[in-house]
Structures are given as structure tokens and as C-alpha cells.
């Protein structure tokens, strides 16, 4: 699968890509929501995994913006964050996020979640 990974913490981003690449996915990286949108248009991913708290454009804004463009309406967006509050989740849901996973992620768990979107 072609996956776009968005996280402003470089280490985490690298770890995320490493996990996904080792599982045979093709990964593009972005450092914040804004960068994510640019990469989204270039890379046309099958799935997006995004962090929530990021500078410039956070994960919620990114999800909204992504859902607002035709190409982004059918792409599952997994929010991968340490946040786990009901309010923020509801906001994520309204923005159009498909799944919510709480950091830290266990590689196999994440890959399992990703696999569920694989056809």
C-alpha cells in the first residue's frame, strides 16, 4: 500500500516509516499537516497516518482539508496520537478521521490496523 505518514517528531516519523516499509508498504513522509497536503497531492496515498499535535497545521485540520478535496474523500485517515480524550476524538470524527490509535504504537498492532484497510 502507499501510505503517507505525518508526524512532526522526526524520530517517530522515521520509526513509523521504518515499520511500514519493513512490512512492504511504500511510504511518503511529511512533517506537518501543511506538508502533508502537499505530499498527499504528489504521492496519492492509499492510506494516511497522521499525528495530531503539529505546528503549522495539526492533524484535525489536515483531515478536514484532506476530506475537502476530491482525491482525499476515499482515503482512510488513521490518527496516531497520544491524545485519548473524548472531546478531541469527537472533533477528529467530525473532521472525517477513519481510525484513532493511541501512541505509543506496537508495530504489529499498527500493521494490523493498516492491513484492515488493504483490499
Amino acid at each position: 500500500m502507499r501510505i503517507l505518514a505525518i508526524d512532526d517528531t522526526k524520530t517517530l516519523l522515521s520509526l513509523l516509516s521504518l515499520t511500514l516499509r519493513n512490512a512492504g508498504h511504500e511510504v511518503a513522509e511529511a512533517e506537518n499537516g501543511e506538508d502533508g497536503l502537499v505530499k498527499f497531492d504528489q504521492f496519492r496515498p492509499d492510506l494516511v497516518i497522521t499525528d495530531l499535535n503539529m505546528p503549522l497545521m495539526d492533524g484535525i485540520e489536515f483531515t478536514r482539508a484532506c476530506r475537502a478535496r476530491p482525491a482525499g474523500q476515499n482515503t482512510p485517515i488513521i490518527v496516531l496520537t497520544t491524545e485519548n480524550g473524548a472531546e478531541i476524538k469527537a472533533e477528529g470524527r467530525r473532521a472525517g478521521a477513519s481510525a484513532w490509535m493511541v501512541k505509543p504504537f506496537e508495530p504489529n498492532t499498527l500493521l494490523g490496523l493498516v492491513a484492515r484497510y488493504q483490499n
Partner: protein
Amino acid sequence: MDPLAELKQTFFQECEELLGALELRLQALDEGSTDPEDVNAAFRAIHSIKGGAGAFGCTELVAFAHVFEASLDHLRSGRVALEDAPFALFLRCSDAVADLVSAARNDEPARPRPDLLAALEQVGKAPGAAPAAAPPPPAAAPAPVAAPAPAADAPLGVAALGNLLAMVEAKTASPSNVDAGWGDEPAKPASTKPGRTIILRIAPESDLFRRVIEPRVVFASLPADDIVSIVCDLGQVPALETIDVSDCFMRFVVTMRTELSVEDICSRFDFTLATEEFQIEVVEDAAAAAPAPAATAGNAEVSGSVAADLSAILAKLGPASPSSEAAEAAPAAPVAVAAPVTAVVEAPAAKAAARAPANDAAAARQRTAVSVRVDLDRIDKLMNLVGEIVITQSMLVECVRSLPYDVYAKTAEGILTLSRQTRELQDHVMAVRAQPVKAVFQRMPRLVRELAQTLGKEVRLVLEGENTEVDKTIIEELADPLTHMIRNSMDHGLETPEDRIAAGKSPEGTIKLIAEHRAGRIVISVTDDGRGIGRDRLLAKARSRGLVGADEKLAPEEIDQLIFAAGLSTAEVISDVSGRGVGMDVVRRNVESLGGRISVDSEPGRGCKFTLALPLTLAVLEGMVIRCGADRYVIPIASVIETQHLASTPIEHLTFGQEVLRWRGEITPLHRLGAVMGSSGTRNENIIIIAETERGDNVGIAVDEIVGQQQVVVKSLEGNYGTVHGASAATILGDGLVALILDVDSMLRLAATGERPPATELKLAG
């Protein structure tokens, strides 16, 4: 190194920066800042640390950071007002995080901090009470409290994360089985399975597909083996003309035979479905559960092979795909007849909400400085290369001199431009290497806080000139001397609150740490308002150690300088903090080895000020090029006080052969550089350079000629050649020859011992 270990290293590096930012922001807030960005940045910092720590399995760090983050979140959300927030506690917590990070980095067991965790948990619960609830200092909180495992101290962190992990794991246990479970395999008879029957009524909101959630993804949250049947209710599907395929109209009734608790099932739909979107009905009697719920008109029972078909349709339908596949599937079920739709769906509410954060984002963009992380090694290479260009350029100048005039004029013009550009390039590269002293200053508040606690003193630390820039190499060397100086001031300089009150001062002592640029050097001073240097005690001690003669009279300032003498500590009790007798003399030695100077001014009863002056860089040096016989040397301009003609200077000989001259009324020793360094060629000494030693004494150095003054690139001798007495380093001059950079003090020692350096061997063209 394997990529993971490498990532881990990077993470710890990032942690350092994040910790710095965290502390800085908390400090700003502690000092009364109301800028929401300070709160946000602090929150983001701890958030990022937590995220990374989790990825690398640093559980203690995650647990602590989580609780810390949660309390900071109270500030962010406004649940706790800034003025009520216990920033002192937060600062101690940021120290604790730093400890946990370094423990994780070194693979050491982390010290559990139940005291801090407990205090953090109180934040937001009883507004205003939190600061009072601050725990006792860590030194006073010994083992018994710390006994339980760290994980147990942080139920919030580890437990919550663990639950969620378990949840997602269960969901994904075997995704492929899900389809098989309600596809190829016939549903298992309900009664053969242990547990009870649960009927789940799922009525997703119409936006399900817009969140790109397919119904099968919803069902995949449940263990496939537990699902008895899934019935799809199509009764809500509107008339074909009005249908919007991006809306979900399906309702489902899932019958399960399971041992899962209701809470567990709820948690599995967490996020995918809101609590209003499903109902759970528990049927304890297994017999009653066997038949599927009564089917209403328009319902389709999904079982056996039909289920497989429907699941395929749902899968295609799910993402509101306008593809031809959906059209192909049309005959299978009436829902799929829908025409392809490409409408862009966006709820008006979402639009409005998107607008507000956009402004924040624009503001954030302005605040975020664009920067690149570069390996110091690369900059060093660049610096070296610039050095080479400088040398090549001066070589060109020498070559051009021999050209005929018309050619010379043009070439000289070009070379002049080149030299200006080279100089600029050098300045820029130096600027890249330059860093604000903030990196070092940032560590001091923590030191002061911890020491203040250990010593039972009240101390306020004032930092000034944190943005003063200095070369990276110097930055690294600053930490030790500064730490020593601050320890010294806090331990020996500042009095206890009781003593201060008795002396008519405020109970809180002040230490000022100030950095500034002065005369091409960076000057850092540590000033305290303590009791000053106890001159009587210091002198008595110096006399008892034989450093000062029994009847020798010293001026007050001279006594103060004794603080730098080896092995002198006047603290009554040798404490943990400082005063092991390896204090200021070591600082002084280190500073001097960097080409710096340290001095002290003390006023009894009023305080004490240490001043540290260091060159801005160790990479280039402004030097005076001199000649002695056939050899040339460079004397750092900083060491040169004055030059004069030898002929006009009366020279006297002391009985043991030492030459002296009278300079400004003072007897000053004179050394002939050529003789000391063993220069080759015939010497004809014409010039005396009056230089200053590190101790502030003056010395005359006789040389043949002053060649010029220029900036030279310092090349380490130890790294490339070996130690050369009398010289601190070498450089390459315009003609490509090596010249030694003299170290006045080392040269004087050489003159005293008479050891000759192997100078001639050094003349390998560079």
C-alpha cells in the same frame, strides 16, 4: 549501527532540545508570562518526549510524561488558570523528565518519582491548592515512598495506554478471518459456544462513509468467531432520486455469542462508532438468542454465501466510490443502483471550525524559525576549506607581485575583490558555527534550583545576554567552568536565609549570570550578593599551606586572587556541592588552556564577581607574524601589549644571565625568541615585543622583524604532529610554509627549562 539504535540516538538528541524548550517556556510562565504560545510550546515539548519515549519502550518516561502532560493540558484548556499553576512543581518535573531521559539513554534504572506524580495528579483537582500540596524535596523523600514499582505509581499513563493497545490488538488479531467468519463458513450454532448472546443494533450516522469507514471495518472490531449473524436493515434507504451514495443508510443487527463484556464491546467501537450509534442487548438465555431478530420489510438476512456477496458490495459501496465497479455491482442489491456521484461533501460546521485554527496556523508560521540541523563535522570541513582559500589567496598576492605592471594592475584588482569575498565567506562560516550561549545558560537554572534545595538557601538566578553568540567549540568548554563558578557562589558566597536577614539583606540571594561581547572576546560574569571572599581565612589558609610567606604582605585584591591557587578551600565544612579543593584552580587552568582569562572581584559583605573572558573562537586567531632568523612565528594579538625597538631600550643583565629591561618603570624579563625556540639562520634582533602572560605579568620578547598582522587559521599540533613546547598550535602562511603560533606562557616555561622544540622538522611546506 542498526537503524533503530540510530533513531533512538536521534530521539535522545531531540529530547535535549525539547527539554531545553520545556524548561525555558515553564520559566517564562513562572516569571509571569501569559503568552498562550508558552503553554502550547511546553505542552508540545512534553508531548513529543512522551511520544518518542513510547516508541522506544521507555515506560517510566512515558508514564511520568503522561501525567505531566495531562497537568499541562489543564493549563492549555484553561481549566487551571495560569496564575494558579504550580510552575515551581512543573519545573521540578521537567528536571525529573530530564533525569528519566538520561536514565533511559544510559539504560540505567530510573528513579521513581511518586512524590512529583502525586503532586501532578492534584493539579486541576483543587485549583490553587496544588502549590501547597507540593511534595517535600527529593532529598528528604527517602526510600519507603519510592519502593513501589514506577508503573504502579502512574495508573493513568501505563494502564490507559495498555488498555488501548490491547483493544487495537484484539481488533486486528486476524483481519482475514473476519470475512471467512461470516462468508464461506456457515455460522456456528450459537448454543455450542460458551458465554451469552448479545444483540448489537448498529445505526451508524450517515457520515460513516465520509470517514472512509467500511462496515466490514466496523465488524472487524469484533472477534469473527463470536459473530453468529449479521442482518442488514435497508429500510432507511431513501428513494433513488434523492439518494446520496456518500451517505450511509444501512442499519445492522449483529447477533453474537460471546464472553466479552459489554464494556469491552463498547470499547472496541471506540471512535469508529459513537455511543449513540449502537445499542447492546444482552440475552442471558442461550435458547432465546438463536433466531435472528424479526426482519422488517426491506431487510435482508445476511448469512452463508449471501453474506459474502453483500460484504463485497458493502466494501465497494463503502467509500462512496464513483467507480464503475459500483455500477457493475448494481444488480446484486437495490442500494447499489445509485449513480456515480462526485460531489465534494463538507459540513458547514466543519468549514466554520476550519477557519478559526487557520489564523492560528498563520501566526504559528511566523513564529517558527526555519532552521537546518548540520553536523558540526561538515562545518569544520567548510571552515578548513575557507582557511585553505585564505592561504591560496595570500599565495596569489605574493605571485602577482612579480608580474609586469599592466598585467599586475588588473590581477591585483581581482585579487583584492577575492580577498574581500574570502574574508566575508570566513565571517559567514564563523557565524554558522556561532551559537548563543543559551545552550549552556539553560542548564544553570536547574543547577541552581537543585543546589538551593540541597543547601537550604533561597536563590534567584538572573540570566542576561543569553543570545550572545560564540563559537560552538567554546560553548562546549563553557559548561564546566560555569557550573563550578555557580556552585562556588552558591556554596561559599551566598549565606543562608537566616544569616542574610541578620546581615540586613533580603533572605533571597541573587546570582547574576551575564554574557556579553567585549573587545572581540566573550565575557561571562557570575555575580552573587553574598558575603564575599573571607580574606582573613583565605590568607591564613594560604600561609598554612606555604603559598604565602608568613610575613608577606598582600593587597586585598592579591588575597582574592588566592582563590585560584591550587588546593585552597575555605569552606568550613567540605560539602558535596563544592569545596573539594579542586575548585577554582581547575576552572582557571581550563579557562587558560582555552586562551581565556578568569578574574575575581570581591567586596566583603556585599558579594563577589567572577569574570570569565574567552576568545570567540578557537578556529581562527588574529595574530602578529614575526620573523626570527629564517623562521616565522605568530603571536596572538591578544597577548601583545606593545612593540619597541631594541636599540632604544636599555637592557641590563642580572647576575645569573637573565636579561631584563625597564618597561614603564617595571623590571621586565627579556627573552630572545630565536634562542628559546632554537630558530635556524642568523639572527639579528631588532624588535622587542612586550607580551602579557596569563597571570598578567609582562615579558619582553626579542625578535628580528615584525612581518605583519593577519588572521590565521589555527591548525592543531597535537592532532597532526605532536606537542611542541612554546607553541599552542600552527598555521600555514601565505607562502605555504608552516608557522608556529606561540603560547607566551609555554614559551616562558621552555625558556626556564631550556628544552628545545624540534622546530626545523616542522618546515614541511603545507
